[in-house]
């Protein structure tokens, strides 16, 4: 009988701890338990047998970290095969292959790539299936993203069911910040057979976390707690929760609806024997009603779209945005991230991500942008593309349960999109159009919505995971259709009870004072049943409408947010005129020296009315920068002041850039420079300061970011034909990779001059890594670059 079949009618009892049991049997602290399968098979088998005698149904193999980073690949087949064989030899009902975290954190927070993690899990899962395991238990995970890599690896390479448990702290989150509901929605979206918690805390402390999981879990919930939080008593580790208390707590959780129990660190066969009695005495399985929700998550937040008005920020879409388009093509991630964060700070609950440009590899860019944005914010994302590979890449490298934009009523679209939505557990956004176009009646649009919902069900996607977009047409072209959209929203709510989403800005296209019309339409649409408008949260007028609507629908309790954020909006006058009245009396140079970013931006706008961009650079930027540079060198000002001035220049340069977009493009670049923080190193603040200073002085910087593979530096230098390259490393260990990078570039016969910097760098290390210059700070980097391009 398959474990999933058995589970349908029975509760399931796992075994207890292995690690702490092995330590009692002679495993030294820090020793690798997996090698005991080979060196002390008798001990491992004896522990398994004790648990089976105590009455457990499932034995977990002694393979917690039998992965390629901890154990040489050559040893893995034997250790894993033996691990499964020893578990089978104890004759349990089922054998679970036990798979723990790899031990390194995934990029971009850490340095292990998603693909590498996936491969380590795949290797184990295949060996486990070949050895005859009945299921894979992925456990003690803190990182939802790593968990996703593991689940995909198992499901894409084996037939085995996956049980997935994460480990939570006293703040009811994992170390990486995932909460119980986010974990539940994401894991079941990925198709696990059971999910739950293990390790870290005792059962009492885990109870509130488990109850949150039970609210939304459609698959059985597992609890394998520690025998309490370990305490140090003298030189020994002590687990405070005794058998009796452990059993009593689990009794309560079984009554609350969990289906699978067992133990983790500190538990023994005695704990399992008591749990067996408990299960035998209370034969009934408690069925708990699940709350249905239309929700998406990031790695650390869940947004329940059916429970609130949610704003989807629309700005990360290059259509009609020159500057963003340029940023996507040149992979200027800082600009893209800034667009993302500004929307979050302005109140976006979800960000739409669309990087669709014909000249780039959209799927690769989608992966880069999605992972990058998820590193800096916890707001969930909407993966938006008309390219199927880009949609799939976005969903695959997304940490959480994504929102997929979009499917429509065309057979071709549904056949391509629904399998992806199902596989990654996405909420999918369905557009009310099909082969015949957009119906002109509300009834026609609702009929398409119904078709989408029905067809999705055939793929196993429930209605709660669908949102319908009634489509918003422009008032200037098809005025009568604006009302149709509102009518459709009402019908979608009344007849289908489905969550709704719509891009409201479209209504005002081609008309003056767009934000006014858009914001009024927004209010009407929300009144008609719109749950999630896609809009520009940076517009003060639209933002005010949202703030007001949240008071009206009761979401903003006691109007607290409304009161705290109330701001007057001037509808007709430009805000810059208002500021001019307050007076900008200083010079641009002064604002830069004082690091007054906002004033510098206003001042340069004023100057550009009369001066050419080049004279602004020469008369204002350069003297100001030289002045503060001089003060910095003399020790009159310090790094924070220097950076603030540099940031003011940078902000002013953005104005200059958009000004240049309007007029003829002149090449003002002082030369191109590649910057990278070397492979293995993730400390890049210093490099970012250098980048800003170089850009201040007019150099064109291509920034490859942090932890940049050696090959990527070589390839970029070659294809971009860049001749000056700055590398940074913070640690002595990563200085080695700096040396490797430079050696690889030289081996490729590229004529490149290198300057290097970073905390541990000095003249000696410069010689060691074979670089041309050592730059002790950002200003020296500028001097090096100036000298280099002067000689050219």
């Amino acid at each position: 009988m398959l474990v999933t079949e058995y589970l349908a009618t029975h509760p399931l009892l796992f075994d207890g701890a292995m690690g702490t049991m092995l330590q009692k049997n002679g495993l030294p602290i820090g020793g690798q338990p997996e090698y005991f399968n080979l060196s002390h098979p008798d001990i491992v088998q004896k522990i398994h047998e004790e648990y089976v005698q105590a009455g457990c149904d499932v034995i977990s193999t002694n393979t917690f970290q039998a992965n390629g980073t901890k154990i040489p690949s050559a040893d893995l087949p034997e250790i894993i095969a033996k691990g499964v064989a020893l578990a089978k030899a104890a004759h349990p009902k089922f054998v679970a292959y036990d798979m723990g975290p790899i031990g390194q954190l995934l990029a971009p927070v850490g340095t292990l790539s998603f693909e590498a993690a996936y491969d380590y899990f795949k290797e184990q899962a295949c060996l486990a299936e070949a050895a005859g395991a009945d299921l894979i238990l992925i456990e003690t995970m803190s990182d939802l993203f790593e968990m996703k890599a593991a689940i995909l690896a198992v499901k894409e390479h084996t037939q085995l069911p996956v049980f997935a448990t994460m480990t939570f702290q006293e703040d009811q989150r994992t170390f990486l910040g995932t909460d119980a509901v986010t974990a539940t929605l994401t894991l079941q979206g990925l198709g696990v057979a059971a999910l739950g918690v293990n390790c870290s805390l005792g059962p009492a402390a885990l109870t509130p976390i488990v109850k949150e999981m039970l609210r939304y879990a459609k698959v059985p919930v597992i609890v394998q707690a520690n025998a309490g939080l370990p305490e140090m008593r003298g030189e020994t580790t002590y687990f405070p929760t005794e058998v009796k208390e452990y059993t009593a707590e689990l009794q309560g959780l079984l009554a609350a609806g969990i289906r699978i129990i067992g133990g983790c660190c500190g538990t023994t066969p005695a704990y399992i024997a008591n749990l067996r009695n408990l299960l035998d005495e209370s034969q009934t399985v408690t069925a708990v009603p699940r709350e249905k929700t239309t929700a998406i998550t990031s790695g650390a937040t869940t947004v329940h779209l059916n429970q609130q008005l949610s704003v989807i920020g629309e700005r990360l879409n290059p259509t009609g945005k020159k500057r963003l388009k340029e940023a996507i093509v040149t992979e200027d991630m800082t600009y893209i991230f800034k667009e993302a964060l500004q929307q979050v700070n302005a109140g976006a609950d979800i960000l739409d991500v669309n990087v669709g440009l014909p000249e780039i590899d959209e799927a690769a860019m989608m992966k880069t942008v999605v992972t990058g944005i998820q590193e800096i914010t916890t707001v969930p994302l909407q993966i938006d593309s008309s390219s199927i590979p880009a949609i799939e890449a976005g969903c695959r490298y997304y940490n959480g349960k994504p929102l997929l934009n979009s499917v429509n009523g065309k057979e071709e679209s549904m056949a391509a999109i629904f399998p992806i939505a199902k596989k990654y557990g996405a909420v999918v956004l369905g557009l009310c159009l099909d082969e015949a176009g957009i119906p002109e009646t509300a009834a026609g649009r609702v009929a398409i919505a119904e078709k989408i919902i029905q067809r999705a069900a055939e793929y196993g996607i429930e209605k709660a995971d669908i949102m319908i977009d009634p489509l918003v047409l422009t008032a200037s072209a098809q005025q009568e259709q604006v009302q149709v959209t509102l009518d459709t929203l009402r019908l979608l709510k009344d007849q289908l009870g489905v969550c709704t989403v719509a891009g409201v800005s479209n209504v005002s296209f081609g008309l003056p004072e767009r934000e006014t019309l858009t914001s009024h339409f927004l209010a009407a649409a929300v009144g008609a049943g719109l749950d999630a408008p896609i809009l520009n949260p940076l517009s003060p007028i639209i933002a005010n409408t949202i703030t007001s609507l949240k008071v009206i629908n009761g979401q903003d309790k006691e109007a607290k947010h409304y009161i705290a954020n109330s701001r007057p909006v001037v509808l007709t006058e430009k805000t810059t005129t208002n500021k001019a009245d307050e007076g900008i009396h200083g010079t641009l140079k002064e604002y830069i020296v004082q690091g007054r970013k906002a004033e510098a931006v206003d001042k340069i706008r004023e100057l550009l009315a009369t001066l050419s961009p080049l004279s602004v650079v020469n008369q204002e930027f350069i003297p100001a920068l030289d002045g503060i540079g001089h003060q910095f060198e003399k020790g009159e000002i310090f790094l924070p002041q220097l950076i603030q001035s540099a940031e003011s220049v940078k902000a002013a340069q953005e104005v200059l850039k958009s000004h240049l977009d309007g007029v003829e493009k002149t090449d003002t670049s002082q030369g191109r420079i590649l910057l990278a923080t070397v492979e293995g190193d993730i400390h890049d603040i210093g490099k970012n300061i250098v980048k800003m200073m170089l850009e201040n002085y007019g150099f064109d910087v291509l920034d490859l970011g942090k932890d940049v593979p050696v090959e990527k530096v070589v390839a970029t230098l070659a294809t971009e034909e860049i001749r000056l390259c700055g590398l940074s490393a913070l640690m002595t260990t990563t200085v080695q990779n700096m040396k490797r990078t430079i050696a690889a570039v030289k081996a490729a016969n590229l004529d490149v001059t290198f300057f290097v910097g970073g905390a541990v760098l000095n003249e000696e290390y410069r010689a060691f890594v074979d670089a041309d210059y050592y730059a002790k700070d950002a200003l020296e980097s500028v001097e090096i670059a100036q000298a280099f391009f002067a000689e050219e």
Partner: protein
Amino acid sequence: MAIAQPKFIYQIFPIQVNEVRQQIQVVGTTFAFTGQDAYNHLQKAEKVALLVTTLGIAIEKKIRQYEVMDLTKALILDTCGTAYIEEVCNRAECQIEADSAATGLFLNRRFSPGYGDCPLSCQKDFLTVMQAQQRLGLTLTESNLMIPRKSVTAFSGLFQVKEDARPRRKRLECLDCSLNACTYRRGGKTC
């Protein structure tokens, strides 16, 4: 989530001095200190206290946000994080001292992998012995960098005789730090 979630764990182990191999074996574990500096530091000690501290992962996200929006704040928050984690170490050390005093032992100055000739490569075993991933969420990259970045591993010797507990506990000096280019460096040449 709070930006800083300071946590520490420590554990006291007996040690065995291996004079031939110039190593300090941490008894009951697979871990041994190599290098002359750690050897000198612990040679006369009875026991060793292993300490692991971290501020957690949330501060990383905040620093990265500031790197995008306001680099000055990124630099300052990053620096605050460094100062904070040192303070967490100081507090933890006080607790270790209290534990040691209860058993009549004296503490010398704390020392960290990466100082002197104590190799960073010992981080792997150090963290495994302390179960730092399970207990603190601490991970190590291929290049032996700890993530979360604002984390410290350190050890102190526990001595029977107060006079042997050297170097004495005191504040770190500029010369112990590897940031040679620091503007504020005191008491020695800057490179």
